[in-house]
């Protein structure tokens, strides 16, 4: 079974040379730490920066340079700053190659819910609806089940949707799963996790071929 860092490490392998990547808050943010050092990748943050670097050293932080999680950051050589309209032109116009974000629920049809629990939690969608409506390549990073043990990979989402039919791939603590037009397809098992465990933790339709390889991290 993977922890959050394990999920981030596995997703980092999906990042290819020449990609512009938007990372959501939470596990997705960690992905930047594990991308192959030998490839060229630029990270976009929707508040208006392309070419994000590491966090600043103490005392070098600048209140005017933050990421979408409102964390202080630095920029790399070649970085650029821009306004929100330009930022979402990059996103809506499909100039960003890969979007990685968290989710509360994903349906077997690729619907995603991650912004609201009616009556309990309403933080807002931020840029997530724009991202999922436009991105061609969306990977969801999340735990396979919620805190009560219920599956987050469902036939149909129960929470208000963020987008419909948009998720392509899901990396959880248990598995790597592709969203196909026939439902979830199991691609890889996490180390030490059996196919049966994944079947048990998945409420939606799960297509399981013979010989599901253990993922390499």
């Amino acid at each position: 079974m993977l922890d959050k860092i394990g999920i981030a490490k596995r997703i980092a392998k999906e990042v290819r040379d020449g990609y512009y990547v938007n990372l959501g808050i939470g596990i997705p943010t960690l992905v930047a730490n594990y991308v192959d050092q030998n490839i060229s990748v630029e990270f976009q943050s929707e508040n208006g920066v392309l070419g994000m670097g590491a966090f600043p050293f103490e005392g070098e932080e600048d209140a005017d340079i933050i990421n979408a999680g409102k964390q202080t950051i630095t920029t790399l050589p070649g970085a650029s700053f821009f306004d929100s309209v330009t930022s979402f032109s990059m996103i809506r116009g499909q100039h960003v190659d890969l979007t990685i974000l968290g989710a509360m629920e994903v349906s077997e049809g690729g619907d995603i819910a991650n912004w609201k629990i009616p009556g309990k939690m309403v933080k807002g969608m931020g840029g997530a609806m724009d991202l999922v409506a436009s991105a061609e390549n969306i990977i969801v990073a999340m735990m396979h089940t919620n805190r009560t043990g219920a599956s987050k990979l469902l036939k149909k989402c129960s929470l208000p949707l963020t987008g419909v039919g948009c998720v392509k791939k899901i990396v959880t603590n248990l598995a790597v799963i592709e969203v196909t037009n026939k439902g979830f397809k199991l691609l890889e098992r996490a180390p030490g996790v059996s196919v049966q465990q994944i079947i048990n933790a998945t409420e939606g339709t799960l297509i399981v071929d013979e010989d599901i390889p253990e993922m390499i991290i």
Partner: protein
Amino acid sequence: MILKTVSDVQQALKGVENGMTFMLGGFGLCGIPEKAIAELVTLGVKNITCISNNAGVDNFGLGLLLQKHQIKKMISSYVGENAEFERQMLSGELEVELTPQGTLAEKCRAAQSGFPAFYTPAGYGTEVAEGKEVREFNGKMYVLEKAYTSDFSFVKAWKGDEAGNLIFKGTARNFNPCMCGASKITVAEVEELVPVGELDPNEIHVPGIFIQRIFEGSKYEKRIEQLTVRTDHNP
């Protein structure tokens, strides 16, 4: 040269009244018009509608206006860092319209640019699209979103000149440029106000035509919401 300079924040906010709609720049606490917000608190205007990506934190930014119950309606994309906001929203004291972030920016830009509405894919198939016209273009579904109408835009820039030309710094730019000229009156506050001719025309982010009033604010607090640093051991 048409000069836009006013002497202080009091002059800059002349004409602000109860019940008006305001656009306020900023992302989180980054690039917010601190001086205009403080003056709105002092003026005590009530029943206002605020269009701003976030709602500040409990004791800074738009949170200051929320504390005094001056805001009737908030239009934002993300309101997660403000307990008082959540309390007022869940109790029904505060009306809230949540809008996808890119749509929010574009609804400001549409107002700035003379577009009554536009189609966007964001929110299609979700409750954001409820009651709105949807239409298919090239096999994909889009939602019709309308431009905002607003009385004042309050923006914050790094440098400006007396003609109202603006230059922003870092990610403090965010929503500020698309709100310039998107309301009847745009008020720009800057950290450094210089005479005309001192800014390089090649480096202007927002031309002064979009600005009606500009003033220099002093002692910007620029509070950091999430201070994150690294050490050599934790790259």
